């Protein structure tokens, strides 16, 4: 007999399972190449299987079917193992505690194998409990599994808590500490009834409330303020839950109304709510767009206001340097000029970062000589090149032309060369190589600088991303240059990339774009 109470509990669990698996796919699609994202996805699979069996078990027509489905509960051992793995992965201790991971997986497989061989030691029988036609009854092996489930994550959790008090990624880790605790506070309620404590397994259904914020923590690039992130994560969780719940309610309401009121057709409520959703969506979207617009406008105005005095300082200093005949004041003015240049760069970066690059504005196509631009940029970096005794060289057969947006291509070359010079230690080299290959132009900058480790290579073109070595070498970078460069090269229909044999071993940044110049027959 399926009661309304059972239906609500099962629907909540079904909802939880689907939401968790959905979040897994979402996180995976955000960055399928990032290990942590893949891992979160894997983590949601046993969770989904667990919830699916939880929903299907009580609905089975016969005891033997119910037994078979409830037996899938054994998947808990893999939930445990993936929780342990995920905890280590977010705290970056995966490699250090490989032995613990191996042991956890070992125990998980051992319990799993034992349960397969001796199913009745795990699940002696399924019996009616509370309002469930069939529910689990715990055998000794089930107790072992439960103990494993509750204890195995303690050690990685302690390590996560310890890591969160360190200086590295403190806020992000604190966030995960809280979220895992939340997940574990909700998850185990289903077990009570297994051990005959009359606690409604409905309380175990909002497990997704713990996992969605973990998913958010993984995909959010940088968590600046824990309160803000918590608020945001809660907002996302409740929005997703709210929308799905609302849809479920609608379906229910629709069935109810169609049943009771003869003049209501099955499409009346969907059409009405569809229209309502559209209107609400529009209002929310326009508020959101307005908010964005105000933000952009504010930054545009603020940077513009800063630019006026900054330009005056910069121009004034130039005149002063030109006019200074004596060495000392000239040197002082040059130093102030460097500081002012840095300030200008920072305002430019803030400005560029807040500009919408939605493809709305066209790129001009003009004939650009890449080597000419390179020489210009090298000249601008001259003082730094001399100061660091860097051997800067250009290896080409002649000027390399390309049809491109000059200002933007110049920005890309500036980013490449500036990074190369800034991140190359004293006495190193920076080499520019450019050539035509088929209908494309390939431009690359090789340096003997700090290099990039394998794991960081994938993220280096992301906004605000800075490698650990880069943070150590230059504390003033922002992590926007390469993201901007990638955007520009993409808009030129080109490709951008980098190679590095590893940290400390130099790197080569390159782009290739169609040269767009018609061959003269």
């Amino acid at each position, binding site marked *: 007999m399926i009661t309304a109470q059972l239906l609500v509990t099962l629907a909540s669990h079904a909802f939880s399972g689907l939401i968790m698996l959905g979040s897994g796919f979402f996180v995976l699609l955000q960055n399928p190449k990032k290990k942590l994202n893949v891992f979160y996805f894997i983590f949601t699979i046993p969770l989904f299987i667990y919830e699916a069996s939880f929903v299907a078990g009580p609905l089975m027509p016969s005891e033997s079917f119910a037994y078979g489905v409830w037996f899938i509960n054994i998947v808990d051992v893999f939930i445990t193992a993936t929780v342990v793995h995920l905890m280590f992965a977010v705290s970056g201790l995966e490699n250090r505690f490989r032995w613990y991971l191996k042991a956890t997986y070992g125990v998980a497989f051992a319990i799993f194998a034992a349960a397969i061989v001796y199913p009745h030691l795990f699940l002696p029988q399924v019996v009616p409990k509370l309002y469930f036609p069939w529910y689990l009854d715990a055998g000794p092996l089930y107790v072992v599994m439960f103990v494993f489930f509750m204890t195995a994550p303690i050690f990685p959790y302690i390590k996560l808590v310890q890591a969160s008090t360190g200086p590295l990624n403190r806020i992000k880790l604190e966030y995960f500490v809280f979220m895992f605790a939340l997940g574990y506070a909700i998850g185990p309620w289903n077990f009570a009834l297994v051990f005959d404590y009359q606690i409604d397994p409905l309380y175990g259904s909002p497990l997704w409330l713990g996992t969605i914020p973990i998913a958010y923590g993984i995909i959010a690039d940088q968590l600046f303020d824990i309160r803000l992130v918590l608020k945001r994560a809660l907002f996302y969780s409740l929005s997703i839950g709210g929308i799905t719940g609302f849809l479920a309610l609608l379906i229910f309401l629709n069935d109810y109304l169609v049943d009771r009121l003869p003049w209501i057709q099955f499409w009346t409520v969907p059409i009405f709510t569809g229209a309502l959703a559209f209107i609400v969506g529009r209002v929310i979207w326009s508020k959101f767009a307005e908010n964005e617009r105000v933000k952009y406008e504010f930054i545009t105005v603020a940077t*513009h206001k800063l*630019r*006026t005095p*900054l330009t*005056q300082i*910069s*121009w*004034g200093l130039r005149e002063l340097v030109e006019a200074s005949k004596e060495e000392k004041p000239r040197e002082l003015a040059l130093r102030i000029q460097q500081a002012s240049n840095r300030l200008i760069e920072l305002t430019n970066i803030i400005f560029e970062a807040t*500009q919408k690059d939605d493809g709305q*504005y066209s790129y001009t196509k003009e004939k650009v000589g890449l080597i000419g631009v390179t020489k210009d940029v090298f000249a601008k970096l001259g003082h730094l090149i001399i100061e660091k005794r860097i051997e800067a060289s250009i290896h080409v057969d002649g000027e390399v032309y390309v049809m491109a947006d000059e200002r933007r291509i110049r920005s890309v070359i500036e980013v490449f060369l500036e990074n190369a010079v800034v991140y190359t230690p004293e006495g190193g080299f920076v080499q520019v190589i450019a050539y035509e290959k088929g209908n494309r132009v390939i431009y690359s900058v090789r340096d003997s600088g700090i290099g990039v480790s394998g794991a960081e290579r994938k993220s280096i073109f992301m906004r605000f991303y800075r490698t650990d070595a880069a943070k150590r070498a230059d504390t003033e970078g922002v992590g926007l240059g390469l993201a901007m460069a990638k955007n520009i090269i993409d808009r030129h229909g080109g490709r951008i990339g980098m190679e590095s044999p590893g940290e400390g071993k130099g790197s080569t940044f390159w782009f290739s774009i169609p040269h767009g110049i018609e061959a003269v027959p």
Partner: protein
Amino acid sequence: MKDSILYIEDEFFFANTIANKLSEHGFEMDTAKNGTLGIEALKKKKYGLVLLDLILPEMSGFEVLEHMKQDPATKDIPVVVLSNLSSDEDREKAKALGASDFFVKINTTPNEVLAMVRRIVGSPADPTP
């Protein structure tokens, strides 16, 4: 008059710096501190080039540009924008209104402005082609 240049700019510092730099190199410089005065100056004298700021009191640089391009007497005078606005939107707008070039003050130097002026109108010593 090919060598005479009008700089419409409300900030005295910029107007003064550029005017000095260009006059030192033989150009005849006039400055106007807002759009309205700029338009008036354009009526009185024939210029070879107009340097134009965008954020100006009374009449914005965009309006000046629009006005100039509609008036047959001024529509052929090259106008180079010299502003600290730099968004794509502003650049496109200036270009659509007929500006020949767009310089962001903070990313340029008085010497670069001089070089640009020379490129457009030639050096004052040059014989008119």
